[in-house]
């Protein structure tokens, strides 16, 4: 099939960007969306033009590197009936039709400055983890694994939250550019495990504080995050975060300055 692409081109964070139109021909329905962009880039390189930059790595939907807005939707999630929520690398061209025009833009959020074209800086998410998204268990200090029992339903629910790949689609999809779903998934994962209890109050207070410092917006329970999440992380996690946050504040926990 033949497609018309309108792609956001921006040479650096300091320069202004714009949409540029390209034609790609002979796209196979079995190609992934990123393979289609590879074809475009090969074409651009041979024509002496600058190829489109985009982050990608594993190309199997797990590393969280890739992610672009496709026709205004993060990873294209929500554009197609009966298509599971997925990452850009796992979206295949069989979802599109010959002659389609596709708009491709980077994640847009104050906390995610553009590096070049479709690649953005998501290090703010790492700093949220740094502020408390861990259990302090230095190597060598662990007790025998079976001395810690975890009820299967808690363990399964923790796992569901822990599948967040940190791609940032939730931020890009949210009208407030809030990172609440990302933060909540880690708060939930660790908060459901017995090992996570000692730091539970401090964790939630510090992580929420850090996301505010990074310039992410507040959560107003719109739900675009969950609807765009390639791992289907549920809004329940946000309720749990708010519950934990209230409890922590009531118990006197305050963010580290």
């Amino acid at each position, binding site marked *: 099939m033949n497609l018309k692409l309108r792609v956001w081109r921006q040479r*650096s964070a300091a320069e202004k960007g714009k949409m540029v139109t390209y034609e790609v021909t002979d796209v*196979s329905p*079995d190609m*992934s969306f990123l*393979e289609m962009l*590879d*074809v475009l880039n*090969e074409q651009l*390189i*041979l024509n002496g*033009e*600058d*190829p489109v930059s985009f*982050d990608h*790595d*594993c*190309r*199997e*939907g*797990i*590393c*969280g*590197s890739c992610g672009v807005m496709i026709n205004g939707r993060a990873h294209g999630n929500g554009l197609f009936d009966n298509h*599971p929520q*997925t990452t850009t690398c*796992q979206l295949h061209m069989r979802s599109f039709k010959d002659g389609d025009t596709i708009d491709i833009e980077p994640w847009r959020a104050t906390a995610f400055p553009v*590096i070049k074209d479709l*690649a953005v800086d998501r*290090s703010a998410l*790492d700093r949220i*983890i*740094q502020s408390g*998204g*861990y*259990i*302090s*268990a230095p*190597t060598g200090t*662990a*007790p*025998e*694994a*079976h001395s*810690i*029992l*975890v009820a*299967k339903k808690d*363990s*399964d629910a*923790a*796992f569901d939250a*822990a*599948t967040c*790949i*940190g791609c940032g689609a939730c931020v890009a999809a949210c009208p407030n550019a809030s990172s609440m779903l990302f933060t909540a998934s880690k708060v939930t*994962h*660790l908060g459901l*495990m017995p*090992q*996570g209890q000692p730091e539970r109050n401090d964790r939630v207070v510090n992580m929420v504080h850090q996301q505010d410092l990074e310039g992410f917006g507040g959560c107003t329970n719109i739900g675009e995050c969950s609807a765009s999440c390639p791992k289907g992380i549920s809004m329940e996690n946000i309720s749990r975060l708010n519950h934990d946050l209230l409890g922590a504040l009531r118990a006197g926990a305050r963010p580290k300055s």
Partner: protein
Amino acid sequence: MALELFTLGDPIADTKAPRDVPISERWSERRFRAKLVNPANRRKLTVIVVGTGLAGGSAAATLGEAGYKVKSFWYQDSPRRAHSVAAQGGINAAKNYRNDGDSVHRLFYDTVKGGDFRAREDNVHRLAEVSVSIIDQCVAQGVPFAREYGGLLDNRSFGGTQVSRTFYARGQTGQQLLYGAYQALERQIAAGTVEQHARTEMLDLIVVDGRARGIVARDLVTGEISTHFADAVVLATGGYSNVFYLSTNAKGSNATAIWRAHKRGALFANPCYTQIHPTCIPVHGEYQSKLTLMSESLRNDGRVWVPKERGDTRDPRDIPESERDYYLERIYPSFGNLVPRDIASRQAKNVCDEGRGVGPNGLGVYLDFAEAMQRLGRPAIEAKYGNLFDMYAQITGEDPYEVPMRIYPAVHYTMGGLWVDYDLQSTIPGLFVIGEANFSDHGANRLGASALMQGLADGYFVLPNTISDYLASGPFGAVDPNHPAAVEALEGVRVQTDRLLSINGNRTTASFHRELGRLMFDLCGMERSEESLRKALDRIPEIRQEFWTNVKVPGEAGRFNQSLEHAGRVADFIELAELMCVDALHRNESCGGHFRAESQTPDGEALRDDDNYTYVAAWEWTPEGVPPVLHKEALEFEYVHLAQRSYK
């Protein structure tokens, strides 16, 4: 014999494992004999760790916790993206929680045998010992392993073993273990013990007065090339499967760090030992950019088959039982579908070579869950393998709950890597190599769920205990950035970068990479012969020549330039490919993943030649035109007796 391809150098040996005590005491004895660094002195010592996968992430975090000054480098935007994240099936540990006869000794035995007697016993035994602590550590970090209703950990079986010792987190074990290490690392970054260098790629090693003292790295965002110094350098940069272009590795996975270290003097061991994983989604087009693995755990319940008749193109569901060949169950009745990876892959290739392969190009076999769905019910299958089934459906557009999966082998892991001793130190003092980047534990074939075990063993427990023996002689003094060795390395990187950008030829880097990959898969892949390898060795120098005169790399050095990154990596893959073929040609025996057509039993199994090849082949780099030098490390089997591997 291909004598003109290399020259024979002095033998090499590990001198660190205390062989004067029984194998089960060697690791504790080594820790006792190793020199220690007083906690107050640790902050005066700097360690560079390159890579943040299971090995690098866990090592950087642990060294930071211990109080060393750590500088951590990774090429992705976040340490959480290292390709360990994609490991699906599980991690082995000799916990014997299933009461099924497992023990440290059995895990040791299975791994030595699984590696087809081409691994060092001492290292493998230590790996088995440490395996139990890894599970404890990961549970303490909050890794959400699969559990039973009583709250205890669940296990499953993997290929090449008859016990259930694999711990897992649905089909995303690597992801969850990596996040454990990543969170520990981020904690140390926040604590100030680890300095982070995101989106920064190591492009050379700096060796001063015979010691590894630093690296040259390029900031991938600004393009700035700079030097970084330390008292020791740890490479945890993964394997080199992307030599084959199509592999299950991430697109960015590369050999540049280990290859540049090799060119600086680190010996490269067993480069021809590559693992072709039997259960991947088959290739479906010319434009394809990577292959996707379907976890080996699927072989617990899925049955592998092809039609008995060649050219049978019926819908698999219409082929009656009597006309199907469940060839693994037929040939290997005791291990059945759970034979080790090298064997499952080669048999898939054999049935496809016979014309019985399925799918559009005949390069595929069925992995069928119909029987398991009947036996266990769909909900049970969904719970165990749901995410893998979804992934398969997304990629192929077919529903594996209804139609058998089609799978075919793909390059997945490289057992070869930089040579290290028992302390995980390379032949360059102060250069340590951990995880897939070294050669140490898997011999000629890695068993399933052992890569995660090795990465975390090296990073959490082995390296932090052995590196102190080296660092105890430090600090080694500040390196002057104007030291000739540092200037020469920095200039070398600048010159190569400028050269790549100035060629301005007619072919893209990707086109060279695809050509190299196809050549390597065809001629140095699942089956190798003197003829195929000689053909490859004739062709690779031509590819190299054309690359350096006709590649077109757009853009500038001083900016974010993904084309430039790729070009540098492919330049190194081309050189490494040549060494892989030399190694494969010199090893005139079959072992594990290295199958030489000339060396097989009457029934087509790999035939080792223990009299001539019971050694590690450690290669010394030589400039273009001079044959590489082979150093042999003789392997001794004191505890697991050399035997023909049998899974029948």
